[in-house]
């Protein structure tokens, strides 16, 4: 079973420990492990000064639970190299809006990682909303399945809408009227 992820369209090893606050734990108190980690928004907000250097180096990233307001990170986007958005269930679509807002409204350019219930049949939607790192739950796919799943990113080659990936909707990016004339 694979613990690899997809990053920029390739299967790679890119391990990061996701730190979560257990019940009763306070953001101010928990130990943030050394090495490559993702910390919850509350930990980042509480201990920003302490963690800033690790964030700037890319060692430490911040993850947002579904429904947490992406705008709260608007002032930190220059420092953060990695932001992860959580999908508690793959049917919970809130993080698609958070991703779109981070990229389009707040201009975030760093790594945007999908974590949680991340499945290949949503890869197309996720990448169009600006996720460049897709981290399925460890063990969900074999290495071979993950390689095969790359194809799902391109399930729809020319979608109708504009999105993070396609800055213009189809009617602005191609001349559909010309297409008709060519057919006639």
């Amino acid at each position: 079973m694979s613990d690899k992820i997809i990053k920029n369209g390739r299967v790679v090893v890119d391990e990061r420990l996701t730190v979560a606050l257990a019940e009763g734990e306070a953001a101010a108190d928990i130990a943030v492990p050394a090495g490559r980690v993702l910390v919850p928004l509350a930990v980042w907000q509480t201990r920003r000064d302490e963690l800033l250097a690790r964030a700037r180096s890319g060692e430490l990233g911040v993850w947002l639970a579904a429904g947490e307001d992406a705008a709260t990170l608007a002032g930190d986007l220059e420092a953060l190299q990695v932001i992860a958005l959580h999908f508690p269930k793959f049917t919970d679509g809130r993080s698609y809006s958070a991703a779109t807002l981070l990229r389009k409204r707040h201009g975030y350019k760093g790594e945007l990682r999908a974590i949680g219930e991340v499945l290949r049949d949503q890869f197309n939607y996720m990448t169009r909303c600006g996720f460049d790192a897709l981290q399925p739950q460890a063990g969900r796919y074999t290495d071979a399945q993950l390689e095969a799943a790359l194809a799902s990113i391109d399930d729809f080659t020319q979608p109708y809408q504009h999105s993070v990936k396609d800055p213009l909707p189809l009617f602005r990016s191609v001349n559909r009227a010309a297409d008709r004339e060519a057919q006639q």
Partner: protein
Amino acid sequence: MYQYDEYDQRIVDERVAQFADQTRRYLAGELSEDEFRPLRLQNGLYIQRHAPMLRIAVPYGNLNSKQLRTLGHIARTFDRGYGHITTRQNIQFNWPRLDDVPEILGLLANVQMHAIQTSGNCIRNVTADPFAGVAADEIVDPRPWCEIVRQWSTFHPEFAFLPRKFKIAVNGAKEDRAVIQVHDIGLDIVHNAAGELGFRVLVGGGLGRTPIIGEEVAAFVPWQQILNYCEAILRVYNQHGRRDNAYKARIKILVKALGVPEFARQVEEEFAHLKDGPSTLTQAEIDRVASRFDDPVLSPLAEDAGYRARLADDKAFAAWARRNVRAHRVAGYASVVLSLKPYGVAPGDLTADQFDAVADLADRYAFGEVRSTHEQNVVLASVREADLVALWQEARAIGLATPNIGLLTDIIACPGGDFCALANAKSIPIANAIQDRFDKLDYLFDIGDIEINISGCMNACGHHHVGHIGILGVDKNGAEFYQVTIGGKQGNDAALGKVIGPSFAAAEMPDVISALIDTYVDQRHDDERFIDTVRRIGVEPFKTRVYADRQPQRKPAHV
């Protein structure tokens, strides 16, 4: 109707390939049941009481004869010989096998059809007036706008996993025939004081467990901005709609919780960012989409003398013409409603042979074009007056000329407990029992315009809340009972019906309807419709009559 270009076709073809692969992985055990369910639902595929049910999209009710023949072929080959028109103008097959579905979707793609987003928590098939483009009271043809909304909402990456399903309807006529007030978004095409085109936007209407009439969130959104505005609504809903309880997850609950002013404020705030963004529509795009509708070019024709003479001479034809033929915007033409409500048939059902026969009628008399209606009938939009007699005779031969459009037997009914896994009670036998009770055409004409809507459960697919008489199947200790409402209405002055009292057993329903009708006949003023009488005198007289009649059954004498 709208003709695909290569981009439309590619998107549908790519969906067929995607779903074939998903089905293969599911059958191979690589996708779990829970992982596959939302994927198949977004392809209209339910697992039902007897077999999968496949719901095929009919965008805003538009079909052509080639598509009908394909549907007939699917009914014959993969189903048990029939299909069913739904209250969202879609078509359902109740008996396909799961492993046949990818092949069926392939056949549909060949005729520019699909099952995309006909279920699931996403933006569903956009609906409209079945008389769009030909109605005499039309201000603006809604179909190009529907198509633009269809394309925008198809595989929108941000809005595929909403808290709950999301339905949009568009009206472009003086009289709303798309029930926009009971949709998540109702778009009403209007002109502002300066004569510019735009949309009055209603949000938060819906039936189901918590029926609510939608409220105006924007009085006028310029047409260029309409997708940006919809995007703002959807983004607010996607982020803030409830996800903890499926029964409270529709946008209407969010709108109620926030209140319309606060909801509108949040939408405006989001819209301020999106306004003039990439989704802003251009005149060129509107023109392009409109130009892909291959509507017949009609010139006014002289009044047809043969048709007029036949109306005077032939009572049966005149009855049909009175109920099933509607005025057309072009002189010398008419729109015809083929009734899918003959006696003893599930409302909205068409057999495989009827699909083919309607296709033939459409080719011969209606420029190959057909519409499905949310009342579960079929419309031939443009028929020459001179052809009406011949069309009537042929429609009669295939059982589609019952002269009952808008009459008591033109009942809307969901598939109900005979097919649907969600239903509490059966719908179709109730519809048939009521039709049997009212089998005298003269009496039906005397009763006049009335709408009976039946849902087998509170999900309200049969739109019972907006029926003049609404019937809702409920479960009472494992037995099937029916709750009755009156005073519901669709249209510009849409209203939700009021419950008349305790529910009834199935066998009582024809008597209940008779008592309601008797009350109306006794109380009505000249030329007053059932709904107007209910609105004038209220529920009480109806209630009194129904429950008075019922008393002996409730307390049988001890003998």
